[in-house]
Every structure is written in C-alpha cells, then in structure tokens.
C-alpha cells in the first residue's frame, strides 16, 4: 500500500508539471490565435520560459541537493555567451536549424564545464560558505565577461581583457565581443514553442533523475549526509552530478534567453538575477517542480502587471515577498493556518492531518 502511494506521488508530479506547461502553452497559443496578445506580452514569453528552466534548474541544487547557490545566473551567462558567440560567428554560415541546435549544445556544454570548474572546489564547502563562494564565482564571471574583448582577423582570434586596441588586430579585423557592450547584432531567434519544448525536455530529465537511483542518493545526501555516506553513497559524485546537471540546464536557458534579444551584455546576469531565481524556488516550495513553474511565471509576470503603478511596483513586490514568506514560513502562522484548516474542514480532513503528523514523527 505504501509503495503504491509513492509511485502515484511521482506520477502526480509528472502529471501536474506537464499539465501546467501544456496548459500554459495552450493558453498562450489560443490568445495568440485570437490576436489578443500584445507585443509587450509576446516579448515576455521567451524570458518566462527561460526563467521556468532556471527555477527548475536551481531547484535541483537548492531543493533536492539542499545546498544554497547564490550564483546561478553565472551558469546562465556562461551558456548564453558561449552559445551566442558560436551562433553569431561559426553559426552564421550554417543553415539556421543546425546553427540553433549547435548553439544550444555549445551553450549547455560551456555551462556544464563551468559547473565542473566551480563544483569541484565549491562542493567541499557547505552551508553559507558554499553560498558565498557561488556568489563569488558569479561575480568573477560577470566581471571577466564584462571586460573581455574578442576580435577576429585573418590570423585567427584575438583576446584582450583591456580594450579594443590591445587586441592587436589587422585593420580589417572584426571585433566580435566588446567588453561591457558585449555581443551585438544577434540575429534574433525567439520561437515560443522551442521554449516550451526545452521546458518539457528539462522536466523529463529532472523528474526522471529524481525518481532514479541517483536522485534518491541526492535526496539522501540532503536529508543526512553522514547517514548517506555510511551506506556507501559517494557524496562528491552525486553532489557534482546534481550541480553540473543544474548548470547545463541553466546554460540552455541562457542560450534561449540570449537569442531573444539583439544584444547580450554580462551585466544582465548579476547577483540580483540569481536572487530572483532563488526567490522563485523558495516561494514555489523547495523541491517542488510544479511550484517552481508557477512561481517563475507569477514572479516574472507580476512586476510587469504592476507596471501601471510604475514607481511603486518594486516596492509592492518587496512587501508581497516579505508577507508571503512570513505567511508561508513563520512557525506561528503555519500553526494558525493548520488550526484554521482543522476548524473549517470536516472531521475527515482533521484525521488526515493527524496521519500526516504521525508519518513525519
């Protein structure tokens, strides 16, 4: 009986996640067909998809591995720059489909490599130290990309961290990346269905991972790393697996996001973006994939809806954030909510609550 219930729970997560994404896709397509989609809302579609992927990806680290990462935007940035750089240079001569697919693969690969570089040293630390080091790596990548110049001439590629002139190029050389100006003149590629397809692939991968042996090892490490180690789980291996998978997904999201705009600058992927994604994960409920999806949509659309109040919108957003956290997480509030739930529901609901309590204990 217990086993059956567990299977049904996993299936439920699959169902809710895919119904959510499918519903989102269907609703948007329907509005598109009816012509009711404003250009502003249309411009928001791809970022929403990218944020959904980012929230799922960060959830892998924060919700399932139980480690706090404050530099997740860096992986997005690594993927975005690698993918777009390829797409804008080598990809320019290819058929568009192939260039896009390759750009995504290269972006994911670059983010994955960056994930390994960060993950190997960082995962030795834990808790707040891990958080600060991920933040540090994010800032480092942002600053380096922000001052990186790349140029190409007949002699090949030239790199400089100083300025355009120290590239030492032939006069016919072309500057491909201009420091703080980043990469410009990107041929835009923003197809909503591709975003949805990527989300679906992400979901398939993450949900399968979490229901596999590896996924159970990862959650075991989160719940008690000493116990996990004592039954022979290789901590480094599984931590790195979760971390790098998460980085690769973030890399894909980065490419998707970057191709939606004509120019790409490193400043976009700063600490605030990392925090916003973390807020999505925490608000959606750590470890809950459907929650992350809903929170990503709500938190991307909410500030846009509040644009009518323009100057008040971030202020309102911050108050909503604080109140939601207090209401969801403060022990006194949680108890009050449970009492209220008991009062209003029938006796059956009450006994269910008791069962849940017993199981936890």
């Amino acid at each position, binding site marked *: 009986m217990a086993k059956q219930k567990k299977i049904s729970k996993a299936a439920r997560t699959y169902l809710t996640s895919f119904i959510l994404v499918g519903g989102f896709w269907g609703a948007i397509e329907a509005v598109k067909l009816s012509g009711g989609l404003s250009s502003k809302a249309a411009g928001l579609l791809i970022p929403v998809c990218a944020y959904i992927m980012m929230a799922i990806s960060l959830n892998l680290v*924060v919700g399932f591995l139980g480690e706090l990462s404050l530099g997740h935007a860096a992986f997005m940035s690594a993927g975005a720059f690698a993918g777009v750089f390829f797409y804008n240079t080598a990809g320019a001569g290819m058929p568009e489909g192939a260039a896009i697919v390759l750009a995504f693969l290269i972006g994911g690969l670059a983010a994955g490599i960056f994930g390994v570089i960060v993950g190997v040293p960082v995962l030795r*630390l834990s808790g707040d130290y891990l958080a600060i080091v991920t933040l*540090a790596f994010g800032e480092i990548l942002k600053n380096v990309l922000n001052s990186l110049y790349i140029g190409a001439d007949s002699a090949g590629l030239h790199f400089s961290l100083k300025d355009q002139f120290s590239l030492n190029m032939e006069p016919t050389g072309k500057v491909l990346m201009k420091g703080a100006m980043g990469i410009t003149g990107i041929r835009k590629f923003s197809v909503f269905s591709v975003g949805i397809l990527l989300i679906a692939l992400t979901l398939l991968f993450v949900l399968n991972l979490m229901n596999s042996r590896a996924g159970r090892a990862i959650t075991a490490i989160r719940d008690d790393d000493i116990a996990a180690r004592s039954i022979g789980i290789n901590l480094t291996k599984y931590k790195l697996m979760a971390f790098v998978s998460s980085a690769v997904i973030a890399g894909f999201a980065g490419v998707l996001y970057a191709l939606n705009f004509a120019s790409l600058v490193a400043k976009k992927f700063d600490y605030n973006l990392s925090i916003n994604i973390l807020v999505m994960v925490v608000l959606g409920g750590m470890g809950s994939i459907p929650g992350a999806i809903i929170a990503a949509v709500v938190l991307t659309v909410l500030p846009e809806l509040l644009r009518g109040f323009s100057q008040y919108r971030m202020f309102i957003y911050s108050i909503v*954030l*604080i109140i939601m956290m*207090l209401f969801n997480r403060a022990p006194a509030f949680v108890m009050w909510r449970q009492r209220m739930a008991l009062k209003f529901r029938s006796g059956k609901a009450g006994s269910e609550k008791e069962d849940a309590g017993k199981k936890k204990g």
Partner: protein
Amino acid sequence: MQFLSYLVRGISLGSVYALIALGYTMVYGIAKMLNFAHGDIIMVGGYVVFFTFCQGGMNPWLSMILAIVVCTLLGITIERIAYRPLRGAASLAVLITAIGVSYFLENGAMLLWSSEPKSFTSIVSLPALNLFGGSLQISAETIVTIVTSLVIMFVLIWFVNNTRPGHAMQAVSEDRGAAQLMGINVNAIISLTFAIGSGLAAIAGALLLSSYPTLVPTTGAMPGIKAFVAAVFGGIGSIPGAFVGGILLGIIENLSKAYISTQLSDAIVFLVLIVVLLVKPSGLLGKKATVKV
C-alpha cells in the same frame, strides 16, 4: 610613495568594510542569519546625514548621532517585524525575507528620495595630512575612518568580553537553548545585536560617503556584499576576523584597481576569497568547527 598612497586609501576603504562586516558578523554569530538588508541600512544612514548635515547644515556630530539613532531603531524594527516571527523556520526562509527587506528599503528610498544621485559633502572638516615633505598626502577622511573603526573594534571586543550583555551574547551565540534556560532573554539579546550592528552601519555609511560622495538608493548594496565577503574572509562570527577581513579586502581591492585593472578588481577580490576559503574553510580567524556524529 605612489604605492603607499594606494595602500593607505585601501586601508581606509577596508575600514569601512570592516565596520559593516562587524555588524554582519555579530548578527550572524548570534542570530545565525545572513542579514542581506544590512547594506541598505548604510544607505538609510547616509540619507539621514545628507538631509540633516549636507542640506540642513546641522552640527556634524548631532547629525551623526541622529543617523545612528534612526538606523538603530530601523534595525530593531526590521528584526521585530520581519525576522523574529521566522525564528525556528528554515534558514533559507529567513534569507529570502532579508532579501525582501533589502528590496523594501531600496525601493522605499527610491520613492521617498528619488533615484537621482545626491552628492554628499564630507562630514570631516579637517585639513589633509602631508607626509614626507608633501609627497604623500593623506586626507583627513582616511585618517578619521581608520581611527574610528579601530576604536569601535576595540570597544566591541571589550563589550563582548567584559559586560553582562556581552557575556549573554556569547552565550546565545554558543547555544541559544541553553542560554535561555540560564535565564537570558534571547529576544532582547538578538534585538541588542541588531541595534549595535545597525548603529555601526550608520557610521559606516557616513564615512563611506565622505570618501566616495555619491548617494543613490542602491549605494549600500555593493559595500554590503563586499562586507559580507570580508566577514566570511576573516571567519564569520569573529569580531577581530571581520576587522582583518575588511582591511585586507580594502587593500586588495585598491591595489588591484591601481596596478591590474579597474574593471577586474572585484573579480580579483572574489578570487582571493575563494582561494582563502578553499585553503582554510573557516576563514582567516574563524573557529574550526568540529563535527560531532
């Protein structure tokens, strides 16, 4: 000479980081939370001094005291409303709330005082110090900043080790439950910690803006993060550690700005932090935590 001048400026910037980091580290040591809104308290302190002293022409000492009082009250209020109800909840929940408070302060300041930059006049009105026949000039702001933060650090160390509330703080930081059983009012001690940290932030804000006189609602964000890094660098929870971490961070930042690259100075600061943490995970002066199974 050039090098010495960069070094002194680095120490001065580092002293500001140290003041902010002291607040971070005390709150972390006692309440076990990362108070991300700490940087924004600096900004509030800065605005108070700006309106009373720079615009209102108030006596600088009076204006400083007013800023300290405002920030202290603000710190206590934030703790009371936003953090205390979450005591006992997961640490991540508290962190997100702190981020919410940080947004709240920044955007509140933007609404109240607009995002237009305000130029700050220095609260220090002393002449600069000329050394070596004028080849090395040290501004009065630099000296005041360094001396202030040194004095504050020694007072804090004395306070924590020699007074009853200080002992209570140590006890709460060691074991909150046991401290409560010994009759220590844990809530009051945590409020006191927030009060001290926020008061220091007000001083840090005025000193920071005296040397770097551009005041906008996000003024406190980056120094806040740097100070957090400084606190971790020196060993979070340790008062001398926060001071050493802050000074070192300021020196590294200023020297790399001068000799390597302005744009990459932040990257270098963070790189040093990573190296330190990998070699010595508990920070320079941090206590080594023994894990009991």
